[in-house]
């Protein structure tokens, strides 16, 4: 069983390999580019990135927590439907929401065009969507489900009951929420926000559509336009350092808290909303769902129909779909298995070294995709080179590439990138299994696998489903790693979207985008069936 102890370290090492590749460039000379950045764009980039991160964190926290609270604790018209429908925006890649938002609200979009003809006005008062606020709103709408999902998990399992306890202590409902429920849900909410933060920092697609310059756009610019992978890696290492500091802070903050709760509550009685409260909540929820999902999907469908021609290669499309689904499925399975093992190991052998190894394993989510992709690629090609050399020397066979260009490369890269996404929900669920639960199980004669099967799995189930859903959808939306590591012919829906948008053909990208959204709904439906039972 001691081999378990090593799993977190092995995975942390796996993640650190690409990070190491990136950081190793730190001492390579690129001072002219740094000087140039300091003198020109860097200050603005940092301000832009900071505002973006803050704005998106505040936005997703407000939306995610409030929506989770409403759907977990209250009863209002459509509550059942909304509680899963609010997850749907997960299926839309943020860059797609971005180009739809621009297509609709920008100067040339139907809204401004119509208003201009009606009002016969130049509409100079109309807020410019290509602005900081525009990017923040779009990213908030795209990323709030991470917070929603995790917060809802926490509220469902403890919200109503802790609220009752708070009320029995003389707090009113509002005080109870802020003083008891919210602090108790903190690790889950913090996990969701961490995911949002990392995703925001690593994002390139969305900010590129807005031409909003951030740290990540600078990384790509230095790499692709100034041909300096060294300087780009140095910038990326700074990003890693920042995220690492945030992780350490969050870890410190978290380790001071202990969670003695609790088993999942039996269907608690929900609080029935009445009168205008009722409609206010329904209206708010509907509004979010409309902006984050219905509007973009409707526009996409519209474009997809426009760009559809009878000579469409349908079999090819089914192939893209199959590739997307099977890759996401395999990745979700692999990543969840690895993360479960890690989480178990760190529970079994607690300690700060272990804790940091685990957290290090999640840092891949914060790196811009292409940077991570090349970071994965370099050590793998090296390994491949060594292997084929050996094969040549020992067996006199010319092997060519063994690992690269196979699904294995892809899966490893996905694992490194998306470990964070499944770590937070599974870890959150694991914290509910207290040692007293284990002791109780032992006293009933359950141990080893039996205990895991009979006691742990039921408690962990919702966390694992959450994790699998998130990973599945995220892998399907993923672009840079898929592009770089896919075997020949393994084009996916995301690859198709890349090809269309890279030529500015947004309308043509609509069909694969709609297909991707629909395919992303599959795990969300399955997930909801599991948790809403």
């Amino acid at each position, binding site marked *: 069983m001691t081999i378990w102890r090593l799993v977190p370290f092995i995975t942390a090492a796996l993640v650190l390999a690409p990070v190491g590749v990136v950081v190793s460039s730190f001492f390579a000379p690129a001072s002219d580019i740094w000087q140039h950045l300091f003198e020109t764009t860097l200050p603005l980039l940092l301000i832009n990135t900071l505002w973006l991160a803050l704005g998106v964190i505040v936005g997703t926290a407000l939306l995610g927590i409030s929506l989770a609270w409403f759907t977990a604790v209250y009863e209002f018209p459509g509550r059942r439907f909304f509680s899963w429908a609010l997850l749907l925006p997960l299926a839309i890649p943020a860059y797609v929401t971005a180009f739809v938002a621009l297509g609709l609200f920008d100067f040339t979009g139907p809204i401004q065009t119509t208003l201009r003809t009606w009002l016969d006005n130049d509409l100079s008062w109309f807020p410019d969507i290509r602005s900081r606020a525009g990017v923040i709103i779009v990213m908030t709408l795209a990323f709030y489900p991470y917070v929603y999902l995790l917060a809802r998990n926490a509220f469902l399992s403890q919200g109503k009951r802790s609220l009752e306890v708070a009320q029995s202590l003389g707090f009113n409902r509002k005080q109870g929420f802020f003083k008891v429920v919210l602090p108790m849900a903190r690790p889950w909410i913090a996990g969701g926000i961490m995911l949002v933060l990392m995703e925001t920092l690593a994002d390139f697609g969305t900010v590129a559509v807005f*031409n909003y310059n951030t740290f990540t756009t600078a990384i790509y610019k230095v790499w692709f336009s100034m041909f300096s992978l060294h300087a780009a890696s140095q910038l990326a290492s700074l990003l890693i350092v920042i995220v690492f500091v945030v992780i350490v802070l969050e870890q410190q903050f978290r380790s001071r808290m202990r969670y003695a709760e609790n088993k999942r509550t039996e269907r608690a009685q929900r609080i029935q909303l009445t009168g205008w409260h009722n409609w206010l909540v329904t209206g708010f929820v509907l509004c979010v769902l409309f902006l984050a999902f219905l509007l973009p999907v409707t526009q996409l469908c519209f474009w997809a129909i426009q760009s559809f021609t009878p000579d469409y290669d349908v079999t090819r499309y089914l192939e893209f779909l199959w590739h997307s689904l099977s890759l996401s499925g395999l990745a979700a399975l692999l990543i969840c298995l690895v993360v479960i093992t890690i989480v178990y190991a760190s529970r079994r052998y607690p300690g700060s070294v272990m804790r940091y190894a685990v957290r290090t394993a999640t840092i891949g989510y914060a790196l811009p995709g292409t940077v991570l992709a090349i970071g994965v690629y370099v050590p793998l090609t090296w390994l491949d080179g060594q292997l084929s050399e050996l094969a040549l020397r020992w067996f006199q066979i010319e092997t060519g590439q063994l690992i690269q260009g*196979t699904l294995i490369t892809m899966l490893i890269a996905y694992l490194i990138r998306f470990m964070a996404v499944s770590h937070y929900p599974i870890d959150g669920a694991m914290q509910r299994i207290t040692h007293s639960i284990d002791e109780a199980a032992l006293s009933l004669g359950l141990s080893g696998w039996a205990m895991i099967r009979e006691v742990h799995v039921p408690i962990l189930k919702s966390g694992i489903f959450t994790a699998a859903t998130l990973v599945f959808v995220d892998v399907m939306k993923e672009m840079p790693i898929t592009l770089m590591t896919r075997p020949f012919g393994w084009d996916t829906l995301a690859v198709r979207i890349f090809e269309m948008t890279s030529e*500015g053909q947004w309308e043509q990208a609509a069909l694969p985008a709609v297909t991707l959204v629909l395919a992303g709904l599959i795990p969300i439906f399955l997930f909801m069936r599991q948790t809403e039972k």
Partner: protein
Amino acid sequence: MPRFNRNRFVVAVSFVFSLFSAHSVHAEEVVVYSARIEQLIKPMFDAFTKETGIKVRYTTDNEGALIARLEAEGKNTPADMLITADAGNLWAAARAGLLKPVKSDVLDNNIPVHLRDPGNEWFGLSIRARTLIYNTKRVDSSELSTYEDLADPKWRKRLCLRTSKKVYNQSLVAMLIAEHGEAEAEKIVRGWVANLATDPLSDDTRALEFVAAGKCDVTLVNTYYFGRLMQKDPSLPLAVFWPNQNNSGVHVNISGAGITRYSRNEQAAIQLLEFLSSDKAQNLFADVNMEYPANPRIKVDPFVAAWGSFKQNPMNLVKAGELQTTAVKLMDRAGYR
């Protein structure tokens, strides 16, 4: 103990092997890394396979990622050819030692000197002309003259530009530097920025739509974006203007290719490269994307021909690569986002 099931074992083993079925070295096959997207290159590959029987395997990605990938793979790369949608990246690949010189009379004969590397490591296959497009309701074509003139205060609040992050603009500015020197080029770019009617846009199609909608009067785009938009909606009030016809000529970029240094199927790869410069493939380049064939003997698409003929800038595109970093820095200084 379950009994050993032979069939199951065979299936399992072959599944494991299929995971590893990366790249088997095939004699009659060319492997291409292409930054030109599938729809714009597959027709040429298909024609090549039909004519020669040689298979083409390809993967697409953006230029920078493909070059980094070639660099990481070193001599184990499966790729025989790199295709990009601009000259600067081919120059960068050549400088990084990823390409090898090709001596071919066919290529020398088909591709004009200014569209290929002086060291023969890469060759332009199609021309992408970056020209002025104006709103016919708001601009009289006599107002327009050169790229440099767009910096004149008379265009204040009338200009739309795509972001400086796109390589097409970087190449254009690099060529301006080659022609006028850095200080003068910076003055021009600063003039452009001062004349912007709105923040730089994320792509050429957007810029065209903004001109058509009247947010600005003139923009700088590659002609095929204009062609695509006009085919969709011929009623748009847009028209082409060919700048700098009395001096340096229209700035052109290329979509081009080179053979990788560690190509394993060099003969077949050269055959493909030569085919791409041949009449048949050049016609396809003109057809699939309304680009201009690199081979001057090939006629352009009739739809494109209607925009008129123009004098191109004859300066060798190697300058676009050499001066790209300088151009990017210049645009940063000038506040061109």
